[in-house]
């Protein structure tokens, strides 16, 4: 009997080890799949133009790294300009959005006025409308207003998001009514209550929304591509397409990679710094276009 038990114990242990090993092999495999393009991007960006083109069979490392591609990325194409445009676009759009959605969420969650519930249900219905459906008219509108190739044209249609208003309202609504009553008794105005009480309490949600919006802005491609054809107003995404099709001459791939590295670094750095906030935010927000 006890021999039998020894055997069971041993085989259970062996099975556990096997399962663990397979798990790690699998996870490592996919981690490499994810990391490889980044590695290749970095590697190619430090290969010289001549070295790269001489490799019929691509080499997995280089012994003569060079930074010349980074120099040409900034000098031969207006990479700095794309960068600056994207930063302006991201900051202004996100800032403007907060100014618009915070009061709206506050009104829905806290204020009582005629027609509130009706408007809120209409808002919820709007959440189901895909961007693709309204972008056509927006394009016509912005063109009609003569705002193509301008920051207002880029920013204005990207400002509001029904989903973020909804997310924030839900969070505001969780704050107990007693707090509002207490503030009212102390003579706090609605606006002060919003900025001094509600926003600090809901800081995690607000940070979440900012993070999501920044990622969205940094990566946005479709709308900027529609309303800009002047490279002076390109964002990084459009910049990459431009570089790919017209920059450097078609075959200077190391220089392209240098540009791509430069474009990818800021958001990745931001992510690595605020790792927990970003991941919590994305999983709370639970959306992806």
């Amino acid at each position, binding site marked *: *009997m*006890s021999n039998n*038990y*020894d055997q*069971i*114990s041993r085989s*259970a*242990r062996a099975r556990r080890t096997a399962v663990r090993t397979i798990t790690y092999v699998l996870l490592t495999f996919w981690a490499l799949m994810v990391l490889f393009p980044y590695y290749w991007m970095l590697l190619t960006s430090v290969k010289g133009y001549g070295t790269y083109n001489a490799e019929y069979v691509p080499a997995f490392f280089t012994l003569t790294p060079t930074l010349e591609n980074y120099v040409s990325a900034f000098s031969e194409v207006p990479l700095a300009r794309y960068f600056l445009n994207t930063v302006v676009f991201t900051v202004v759009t996100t800032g403007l959005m907060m100014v618009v959605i915070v009061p709206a969420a506050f009104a829905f969650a806290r204020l009582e006025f005629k027609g509130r519930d009706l408007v809120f249900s209409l808002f919820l219905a709007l959440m189901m409308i895909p961007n693709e459906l309204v972008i056509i008219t927006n394009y016509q509108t912005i063109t009609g207003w003569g705002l193509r190739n301008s920051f207002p044209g880029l920013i204005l249609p990207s400002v509001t998001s029904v989903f973020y208003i909804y997310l924030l309202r839900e969070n505001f609504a969780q704050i107990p009514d007693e707090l509002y009553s207490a503030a009212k008794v102390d003579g706090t105005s609605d606006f002060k209550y919003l900025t001094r009480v509600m926003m600090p309490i809901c800081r995690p949600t607000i940070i979440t929304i900012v993070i999501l919006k920044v990622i969205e802005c940094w990566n946005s491609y479709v709308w900027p591509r529609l309303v800009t054809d002047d490279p002076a107003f390109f964002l990084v995404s459009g910049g990459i397409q431009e570089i790919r099709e017209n920059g450097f001459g078609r075959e200077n791939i190391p220089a392209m990679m240098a540009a791509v590295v430069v474009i990818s670094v800021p958001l990745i750095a931001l992510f690595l710094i605020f790792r927990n906030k970003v991941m919590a935010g994305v999983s709370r927000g639970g959306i992806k276009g």
Partner: protein
Amino acid sequence: MKVVLQNLTKVFPSRDKKSKDDVIAVNDFNFEIPDGKLIGLLGPSGCGKSTALNLISGLLRPTSGKVFFGDDDVTDLPPENRGVGLVFQSYALYPHLTVRQNIMFPLQNLKGTARLSREEIDRRVLEAAKLVQIEGLMERKPGEMSGGQQQRVAIARAVVKMPRVLLLDEPLSNLDARLRLQTREEIRRIQRDTGITTVFVTHDQEEAMSISDMIVVMKDGVVHQIGKPQQVYDDPVNLFVSKFLGTPPINVFEGRVKGGALFIGDERVLDVPGAPDGPVWAGIRPEGFIPQADGPFTCALSGVEVMGRDVSVVCRHPACASAQIRAIVSSEIRLPEGATSVRFSLKPHKVFLFERDGEARIRLAGAKG
């Protein structure tokens, strides 16, 4: 099936990486659970009793020491091969399965020669359901049932596979007071009916005392006392055990032994033959007080609470470790109207002396135990 724990120790590495203080959840356990008995593992929260239970179930592996079921060493055996039934504090009923499917679940896991026919499974499920009296609710989901009903399903699921040992982890803590009383009787009945060796973890001493054949009192990973409930109550080995058992709790005084007598304050309250001179903790059970006009022990009277059969006399004394002293006396005794103090004599076998340092019991000459 008798269960034996031998030098059983479980150490959890410290969660805080900087400090090296490992947590010893279970420290050198040595005891034997006799076949077919119900034992209560009793202690304050965080004392390691759930850890001990999980060492028996196999969900945790001991740092050192051994666990035997009967004569078999099961220390390294994974939980599925031990044949234990486990009832969780949260019940852990699968919310997406009906009561029938929940109870059936362990039986469907059986493979090879142990595999059961459909009819056999149905029969055993029904038997288990009848045992806990939920046979009328078989098609419900756990979410549609009361806490008490869920508890019964959890027990049925644990006993349906006829475990060698049944383990219950705080099974009553999520029930309201009335249901708790009812369910603990139920657990006792089921245990008697099935004769399965059962370990019951709780922090509620009354619960443990009322249904256990034997209780194990533990604190900070250390077993303090093992015995029949009444025996542990009547003869605690240290101050902690005496304080942990009994409602209302024991009254503890700073006392002094001089010349074979116990002094509390300046009063010589009781003869304690054989006790060495020196400061002591004196624990007096609430039922150890006898109001007596010429009694040796004087307390300031705070009030009298009549609770039907008994009367609880609430008083104060400067030497008492807590703010209030509670004495339970017979309702036939009347205290004079408007009295501000009350005098007691003490029942010797309801008074325990403990060392001031170390808090171990001081045995008296000629006393039993």
